[in-house]
């Protein structure tokens, strides 16, 4: 099942509902990168709350998505990483460098809203300004 991508103003929301195969992840990446241009989006939120595992391929794909979207002129926030998943990831060295993260969808939208308003407020996260 493809991941639904919702449009909300100038923001796209991709909410992952179940574990994804590598092919589905690539599909999500391609769809998001395409839609950013199509919908003239300024911000993207990728919600991974439902994922119990984020392996190296998923982490790399998430990072790629963020960098590609940045090149397309929009900003991405990854939200909803579970505490256990977060610790497992850093132990494996998957630290999502250069990726802005937030606690949940609300936080992510909040962050984007402030970013897009040109405020840039809130704690600056490593690499997000690059």
């Amino acid at each position: 099942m493809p991941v639904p991508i919702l449009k909300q103003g100038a923001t796209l929301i991709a909410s992952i509902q179940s574990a994804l195969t590598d092919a589905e992840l690539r599909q999500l990446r391609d769809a998001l990168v395409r839609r950013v241009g199509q919908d003239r989006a300024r911000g993207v939120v990728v919600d991974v709350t439902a994922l119990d595992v984020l392996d190296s391929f998923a982490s790399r794909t998430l990072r790629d998505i963020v960098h590609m979207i940045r090149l397309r002129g929009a900003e991405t926030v990854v939200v909803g990483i579970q505490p256990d998943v977060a610790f497992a990831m850093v132990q494996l060295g998957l630290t999502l460098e250069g990726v802005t993260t937030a606690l949940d969808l609300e936080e992510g939208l909040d962050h984007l809203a402030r970013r897009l308003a040109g405020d840039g407020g809130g704690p600056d996260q490593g690499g997000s300004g690059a």
Partner: protein
Amino acid sequence: MPHAVTGSETGAPSQSAGALLGELVAHLRQHQPQLREEWARRIIAGRLLSAMSADEVHAEAASIYDNYVEALKTGTLEALQAYARGLSERIIPRGVETSEVVEIVLLLRDVLARSLFAKYQADAGVLNRVLDAYEPAANRIAITVAVGFVEERERTIREQQEAIRELSTPVLQVRERLLILPIIGLIDRQRARQLTEQLLRAIRTNRAKVVVIDITGVAAMDSNVANHLVLTVEASRLLGAVVIVTGLSPEIAQTLVQLGVELTKMHTVGDLQGGIEEAERLLGYQVTPRAGPAAG
């Protein structure tokens, strides 16, 4: 098969060790009151178990004696083990030392051996065989009781350590979305793990954006713990929270640099006050003293 001890002191020379044990168990049962009394008297004379009253010593001595003879008879130690554990549980809180327990068991061994000497002294050959049967069994029992006591003590200590650990790692919210984690004392691997779990859970439940970890109270840190700290900082970032580490002592700073711990991702501030001020700045708080005549 316990042999009935008849008038003849010298058994058949071909008696097996098992039969000899049976015979001496019968002897110990028969003389139970005197031997028990003798043992309890020597415990009190030796000022052992001073935490207990004479009556308690007699009562415990009676049941230990019975368990001891039972273990000799059956050769199985499970029942005695369980009894020793229960006894340890009762006497450890009263301050009984390991040396006392060992000495008491050895005293009983001694009392019983003396009684065997007295009984078989007429015939050195039989005495030797009886002791051959008795000594190994008695040694096993002594070891079982001592080990049981020490294990029980270690279990108590582990439980206390666990309790102290839980007490010593509070995660506190000082402002909306700002958490403080003061770490005091020694950090080992297990505690570091527990700290991380607690912190990540607290970030989620309190919806924290900034966390200040204060390690002023940590005297030393090895590379394992330092790396764990770095992992914690990164995991927190994945949850959307920024971590500020404060209060690194000169010693820890030197150690971390010498160990080559990857510190570029760590946001550090000198002391807790500075850390909280930095966190407030990140969260957009501005704290200013109220101007007025009352302010000196």
